[in-house]
């Protein structure tokens, strides 16, 4: 099976709120001293693909991003993806809207050719649009299943389990199909071995640009009208007391107070 995993590099989502700043003019987050990391759901998607990987499969990873996104792809190769392609974008390009990203990814899919299964993350940890996978499916005219957490084969048929708010649904799908991946206990991304990290740096990386693919830099889907950091007021009252017993007693009283008024 020919599998593609779309991976996005994002500003580290673990930057604590107190260090997070925005560039009001560009309506973007300030990079500051934060690192760039692979979006967690893209790693969940790759992990799902690696565990599924039927015999003779090939897993390609694809990213559209600045030159630094090469790191995301190298890490994916170290996790044991087979091939990688980068659609390079200028460093100072404005943030792309999800339709533009989907168009670029769709053009890449056509250019690389022949995928049976295309995986994306459910959403990216930066702007959290949660749309690119669905729009990519539309661009390619393929069916799409969202929020999946595992893939399997049953008598040669592809089975996709996806989460719902009350449980799960099992799909049977013909290929090609686009699937967006969410987290669960089984697709926590593996840590690549040091040796594989070194080897990954010697592997070839296909590179092209959106213009070469014939996709103009155009954001005609939506725009960011405002970006701001909301003010949050908070005064936490820590329960007082000389002993644990006294403190817990205070806590119990407060809990009863707020629940009794219900």
């Amino acid at each position, binding site marked *: 099976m020919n599998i593609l995993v779309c991976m996005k590099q994002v500003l580290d989502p673990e930057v604590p709120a107190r260090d997070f700043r925005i560039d009001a003019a560009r309506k973007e987050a300030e990079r500051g001293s934060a690192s760039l990391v692979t979006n967690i759901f893209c790693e969940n998607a790759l992990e799902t693909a690696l565990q599924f990987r039927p015999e003779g499969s090939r897993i390609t990873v694809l990213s559209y991003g600045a030159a630094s996104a090469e790191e995301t792809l190298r890490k994916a190769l170290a996790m044991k993806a087979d091939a990688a392609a980068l659609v390079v974008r200028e460093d100072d390009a404005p943030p792309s809207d999800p339709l533009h990203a989907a168009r670029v990814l769709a053009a890449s899919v056509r250019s690389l050719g022949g995928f049976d299964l295309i995986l994306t993350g459910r959403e990216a940890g930066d702007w959290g649009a949660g749309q690119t996978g669905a729009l990519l499916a539309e661009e390619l005219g393929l069916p799409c299943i969202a929020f999946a957490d595992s893939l399997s084969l049953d008598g040669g048929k592809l089975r996709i389990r996806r989460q719902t708010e009350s*449980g799960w649904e099992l799909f049977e799908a*013909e290929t090609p199909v686009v699937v967006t991946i969410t987290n669960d206990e089984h697709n926590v991304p593996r840590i690549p071995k040091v040796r594989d990290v070194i080897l990954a740096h010697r592997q070839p990386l296909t590179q092209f640009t959106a213009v070469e693919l014939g996709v103009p830099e155009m954001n005609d889907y939506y725009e960011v009208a405002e970006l701001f950091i909301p003010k*949050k007021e908070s005064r936490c009252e820590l329960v007082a007391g000389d002993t644990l017993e006294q403190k817990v007693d205070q806590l119990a009283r407060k809990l009863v107070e707020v*629940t009794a008024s219900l």
Partner: protein
Amino acid sequence: MSIVTIHFGFDRAAEGLLGAARRLGDELHAVVIGDGAHDVARYADRVTALAMDYHPEACLGALVPLCAGARAILLANDTYSQELAPRLAYRLGGSAVGDGVAIDEQLRVTRQVYGGKAQAVIALKRTPGVAWLRARSFAPAPMRDTSAEITTVTPPNIEAKTRIIERRKETQTEAKLEDARVIVSGGRGIGGPEGFANELQPLAQLLGAQMAASRAACDAGWVPPTWQVGQTGKKVAPDLYLAIAITGASQHMAGISEAKNIAAINIDPDAPIFRHARFGIVEDYRKVVPLLREKLANMK
């Protein structure tokens, strides 16, 4: 031009969605998939009941003609709505935006970004504007004197390349976590499934609470994924959210921004959760919770 709302049954989210749509003006056409058309008809101007089971491709096929000519299409933030919204926008030549906490008449949608560390107002460039909203936090629409007319449509069967072969429910109770008034939630610091079962569960029972968890606790496999609260989990709005051994990462807080009271039990005084909580205790939960249960039982 009309506003279309799409519902999968009738609940608090449907009420909020109808409220949001009503405040945009224009004729309100509600499309209901599954039960609930009669309830929705008390708020909308026109109701179409789609007689079908949920299937993404089939629903899209049925919704596209019903949404033709709409100015805006609003959905809630459940699984099915999130799955359909971008694709529906695409097929109608429109734009979509999700997880909105506010929407104005120009269809500018306010939403959290960067894991809840910032907020953005997104302006849609194409028509129709499709938005999925945190519908439960919107005020309901006024009820009509007479119910709107309901047209039932049975969509033709389509040749779908995907098929749902099994559906499972794995919820704690019939009541939805989203509607819970008290929630006891545990994080990675709980240390294992035993902590949830032996410490948190009995505490939740005493408080009449439902249980929830952080992503870390779900990813560890200690509790099911349906318990996850946060940016990519459930958005809850209880009167009390008791966070036990949860750091309070922005992505977790993004799911409880509507909670009225947050209380925290955490061993680390510098945990960000204390910057959001109204009250709390800095202690090992394993010492606090057994004692707390005793106190609460005595106070009953």
